[in-house]
């Protein structure tokens, strides 16, 4: 990877977060410090998740892919929901929309740093050209959509009567990693097709979230009447 390629990949992975922060109007309602708080929350939650994984699934790190153990393992991702909930109710302030977008952004940024920066940094050593780094970087935008949706749904699920609609979409978000892995292994998708699937899945999740969100808002509005 040349230096230029490295810069390209970094821009591709992290610039979307800045663009969203800067231009979606969030910066008018919240400071960047709140995003940093969200990132801190992410790190603490991951720590808790790791501890739980190490305690309850100690020897699942074998090679190969089996659906059930993977499912059990990814159910630890529910901790994310709890962490996000605690974060948004206790550490972020402002309107609901602002809270979950800020929470989601900070969370997603920390997630992206943890998953990509080291990888790119290490990968920069190789001189061979591979699309892998571009693909990894593009994944970051897909993750952004899923994570903001996750934050939004987490916010809503404690504040809405209509839990029946929200919970399946929330499950879609929480188990997204599991879905990716399953699809990857059962259809042996790699590279661009997998990336395309991730994007389709994330866009679908995001769209469903928007629908659920607006439906929820309408009911809320009706209730106010």
């Amino acid at each position, binding site marked *: 990877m040349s230096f230029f390629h490295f810069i390209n990949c970094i821009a591709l992975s992290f610039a979307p977060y800045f663009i969203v922060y800067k231009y979606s*109007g969030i910066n008018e309602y919240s400071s960047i410090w709140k995003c940093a708080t969200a990132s801190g929350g992410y790190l603490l939650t991951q720590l808790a998740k790791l501890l739980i994984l190490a305690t309850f699934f100690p020897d699942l790190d074998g090679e190969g892919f089996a659906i059930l153990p993977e499912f059990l393992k990814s159910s630890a991702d529910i901790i994310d929901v709890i962490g996000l909930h605690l974060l948004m109710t206790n550490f972020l302030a402002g309107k609901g929309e602002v809270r979950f977008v800020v929470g989601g952004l900070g969370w997603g940024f920390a997630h992206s740093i943890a998953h990509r920066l080291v990888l790119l940094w290490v990968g920069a050593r190789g001189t061979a050209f591979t699309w892998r780094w571009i693909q990894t970087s593009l994944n970051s935008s897909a993750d952004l959509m899923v994570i903001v949706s996750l934050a939004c749904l987490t916010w809503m699920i404690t504040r809405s009567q209509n839990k029946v609609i929200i919970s399946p979409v929330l499950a879609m978000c929480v188990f997204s990693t599991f879905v990716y892995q399953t699809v990857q292994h059962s259809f042996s998708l790699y590279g661009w097709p997998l990336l395309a699937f991730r994007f389709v899945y994330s866009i679908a999740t995001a769209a469903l979230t928007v629908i659920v969100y607006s439906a929820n808002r309408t009911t809320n509005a009706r209730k106010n009447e």
Partner: protein
Amino acid sequence: MQEEIIDFFRNPALFFYMTLMMTVCVVSGSQQVGDVVETEFHAYRLHQYEISGNMYGSRNHRVSYEAVSLGARALRRTMVTSWREVLTHDVDDMWALSTGAVLIFIPDNLDELNDIDRKAFLDLETKLLNVRTDLAVYVAPYNDDAASILNDVNSRAEKAPSALQHLIQSLSGNTISITSSDQIPELTDSYKPVNVVGRLSSGDRASLTIAFVAHYDTSSAVPGVSPGADSNGSGVVALLELLAVLSKFYDSPSTRPPYNLLFIWTAGGKLNYQGTRHWIDEFQKGIEGSEFLDSGVNRKDDRIDLAICIESIGRKTGGLYMHAGKTPSENSAAAQLLRRLNNIAPNKKIELVTKKISLTTASVWEHEKFNIKRMPAVTLSTLPSPTDPARNSILDLPSTLDEEELIDNIRLIAEAVLGYILGLPETGPSSDSRIKSEVSMLSKDAVDKQRVHHFIRQFASRPRPVGDQKATESVTSNLASAAAGYGQVFKSGVTITDAKAFGVTQNRLVAERVKPAVFELVIAAGVFGYLTVFYYVSLQNRQLIVNNFLFQLTTHSQNTIEGTVSAIRKSIF
């Protein structure tokens, strides 16, 4: 609200975004799936050595150049080619290039070459043996990775049919860069290959010495791949087996023949017999006194009766040749040995071949080193001429060894030498030619088939060029421990003079597909486009959020207005 969502999806930016993604997937997905971008393989370097100030072979071992096809001769490139191409193309001007590298793929299984290919391969070897170049020349066995590398290189060499395609190719075409990844240090001055000497002593001060000599190192155009099974693996095996067979006679004082026997495995044979020269120098110096038995050095007044050098005796070529500097006189040990050999195996063609020794050029046979110092010596070989290409060939593989023939020859030499040192009559027990009987000092299984097979596996099946320090050290220590079972063994380091071996015989090459630097610009443009799209989507998002507020506001105010209106109505009516 729903309308807004539908509006969001109607947004042209989103469509743009989707199409961009799709095109990227379609365009790049097809060629990238399962495509390996980086492969690593072992490559073996062309020989490099120096004798009397003359450099031979390839003078470089570092590679970090872009791969091109053989036709595109250019500085600072790796010419990648298959071995047949080297034969069919005129490559003489390529060797004259000052920087760059050559990578030649040879068949991965040399045992399975047919006769025509074998001949062609020998031609290639002769070509490579005569090469003197500044390029780093490597040879690697052909495999799937090699096929894909060759394919890439050749398709790049073809001219694109139209200008546009040419542009696209130069923008995004794969190029392969080949880099040598092992940092192997050059041989240090402290590295001394070792002569291994085994000794069977008669215990008598006055007895003469017969020396068996074989050099154990291998060489060829590509030393890293040639196991040198016949030259001189067969010699190494023969000496070990002779030591094993003859040691039986030295076990008890009553059967001990009145000759000292020396078995000398010499180093650097392909470097103008460095080990032999070193040993002769040491021998002629000698030491006085009685501690010679433990020192590995002989007494000053010890005399060599005959040095029998053995090289390439494991192949069926229709005869066994005794090479000598001049025709030996009637009563000399060499002449007696020749007569005995002929008497023992009347069916075998055993001939004397003489070749005048040149003092100025490198020795062609090992015995010449002895002759130069006025010591009687001959070489036994199945090869009729020292210039036989089989002596320095990669194709000198263990599979070409004829074990039966090797055992036969070992037995023949053992019998002849035994007859000589025990002073048996030359023509057998009876001088009457009418009496025919098989007479043998050795039992039928004295030359052990299993043992010979094992020795071949251990000593004649792996490359052991003098430049490869590890291989040389391993073969000498194995030799020493194998010989120690039958006699006294000594080792002595050889100082190489007037010649030089070079260390890097093999290397790990890494072939990587890289894109031209301009391609990064294309990607940067793509990234910029993507981020722009993202920017528009975010703006849309902002509108969505702001609209939500407005929506809330309007519903709220609507409610207020409606409430007011209804209140007014109530109050009126």
